[in-house]
């Protein structure tokens, strides 16, 4: 027994003595959480900075599981940018603590004023974290982030400001284009039924009535009564299509469709929307603008 313990102590001390291999990175390194943020920071920084996203395409940020590589990413980051409002679960607390300890972290939700954030109906201290679905919010965040990045990394100040100004124009253009597309849909028909409450900001901006089957948390499931209530609502308002989401299983939405059909009406599944994550980075939907255009086109085409 003693021999085994001695072996163990040696084993552990051997590993502990392994020399650390630290890679010197000359570029300013920014670590981001969700794919939306990764995209934004890549646009702003271009080739001047190194951007490392820790969540991949199609990952639900509430249920994200970290890998060992994230440890090194986070400890070597010069700046960490995250969404906030509990989107990243307990990680938000960790980032807030890291900030107190001198590591620079930025929560995008901090750039927004109170009336730009949607509160929980029941608890004033809780907020809807899906802030990126409002283009206006995203513009505010872009301007805020340009200032914050310029302050954190003054060497690349010019790059951020140039890219930021260009991107704000793109977002402005996106807003105009999307408004045109959505205007083709009569106000009566602007009802968006999805798997979970991710689209409230979208609804607020473009005058949609948004109905989420599940609550805000992707962990709870829809109750039977919810399904009944929403299926009655769909029939009453003659909603043509309901939508599934990239980061939520489609089971509950299919249950809703079955419920509507059992009452002798028809509702089709209008397609898959991107909610908590962007698509594959090599495709158009892997970028914020591409994702937004895709979502709006899918919604409008299905509801027409």
């Amino acid at each position: 027994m003693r021999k085994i313990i001695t072996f163990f102590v040696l084993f552990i001390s051997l590993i502990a003595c392994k020399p650390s291999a630290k890679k010197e990175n000359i570029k300013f390194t920014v670590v981001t959480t969700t794919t939306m943020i990764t995209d934004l920071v890549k646009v702003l920084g271009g080739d001047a900075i190194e951007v490392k996203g820790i969540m991949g395409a199609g990952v639900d940020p509430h249920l994200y599981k970290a890998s060992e590589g994230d440890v090194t990413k986070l400890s070597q980051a010069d700046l960490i940018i995250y969404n906030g409002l509990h989107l990243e679960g307990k990680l938000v607390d960790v980032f807030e603590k890291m900030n107190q300890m001198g590591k620079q972290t930025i929560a995008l939700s901090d750039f927004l004023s109170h009336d730009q954030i949607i509160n929980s109906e029941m608890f004033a201290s809780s907020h809807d974290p899906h802030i990126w679905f409002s283009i206006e919010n995203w513009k505010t965040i872009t301007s805020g982030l340009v200032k914050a990045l310029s302050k954190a990394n003054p060497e690349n100040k010019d790059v951020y400001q140039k890219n930021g100004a260009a991107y704000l124009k793109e977002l402005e253009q996106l807003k105009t284009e999307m408004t045109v597309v959505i205007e083709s849909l009569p106000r009566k028909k602007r009802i968006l039924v999805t798997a979970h409450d991710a689209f409230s900001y979208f609804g607020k901006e473009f005058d949609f009535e948004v109905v989420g089957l599940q609550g805000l948390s992707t962990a709870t499931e829809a109750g039977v009564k919810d399904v009944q209530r929403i299926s009655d609502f769909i029939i009453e308002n003659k909603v043509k299509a309901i939508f599934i989401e990239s980061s939520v299983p489609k089971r509950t939405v299919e249950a809703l469709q079955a419920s509507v059909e059992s009452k002798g009406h028809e509702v089709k599944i209008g397609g898959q929307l991107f909610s908590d994550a962007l698509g594959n980075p090599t495709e158009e939907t892997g970028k914020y603008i591409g994702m937004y255009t895709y979502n709006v086109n899918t919604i409008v085409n299905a509801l027409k």
Partner: protein
Amino acid sequence: MTNAQLEIQIILSLVAVACALPGVFLVLRKMALISDAISHSILPGIVIGFFITQDLASPLLILMATLTGVLTVVLVEYIQKTGLVKEDTAIGLVFPALFSLGVILIARNAGDVHLDVDAVLLGEVAFAPFDRWMYNGIDMGPRSLWMIGTILSVSMIMLILFYKELKIATFDAGLAASLGFTPIGIHYGLMTVSSVTTVGAFDAIGAILVVAFMIVPAACVYLLTTNLKKMLVGSSLVGIFASITGYWLAHALDTSIAGTIATVLGLLFFMVYLFAPNKGYISQWYKTKQQKTEVAMLVFMLHLANHEDERERNINHLQEHINWSKQRAKKVLRLAYQNNMIEVKDEVINLTEKGLAFTEKAISYISDNKNSELEGIKQNFFLFRG
């Protein structure tokens, strides 16, 4: 190795030991799944804590979770004590009830708040080094290191103080009662320690790994030894070994740390299951095989003892008389010969004196049928085993 990596390994090792110690007793008491049950049943505690503070980050939520964990084990212990249902049924009765209470509370009152176990307990060891405890502006190290260190020290002290009582209460509750202390008190104490450890460990490393740390090391050493002290030390070492190898495997593959450690634990158990002396699969298979040949030899010798006729004992006609394959006959004959039980004269097999004595002993064994005696007889007579 960076500081963060070192800290993660220390945290993992401490959690492994903190889980392994109560884990051994839980496995022995057939209550191993209690840790899994607690991971679900703490939900209502978290929800009620949130209703009181309205803040997801409040430490009260973790405190309430711990209390619900203790409530879970108290209920399980109480139901199990009635003797009406088995241990696993008692666990299965309590945790779904508590968990669904939590789900109902969320669905009715907080449908639009991101409220679940993951939102309150960190449960990801990769981020543990970044969640640090600051005291007067001085960095005191990762918070979970302190938390799990405290839990481990307390349970170590309890273990040393109550070792004898725990041992008796686990193996012989009746004796414990007759010795004048109640095993129930010890059981409640053990279950409370397990519950607090489970909740603390969840916060540090996440649910699946806690369940694995509680059960797998204890199950491994259970196959290797029956000595309680060795089991406690052994399961701690298995846990630490899996933590460190699992961590570096996760590093090499750039994947979830908890996932690889749990996988390493699973593989370790599989190896122990195959190769453990006495209880292992290979050792069991070998023993069965050995016993078959030895029984065959005994049958053969009884045959020899019962047949005076030389024709029945001719070495070339054995197959016909006992109806064995050539291979089997050879094997049995060799075993008997090696052990000096038989001698061959003019192609006729005779029992030696030793063979006769063995046969007599074996017959008397067969008539009173005591297994322990047969092993003893074999020990006395055999030079080679089958």
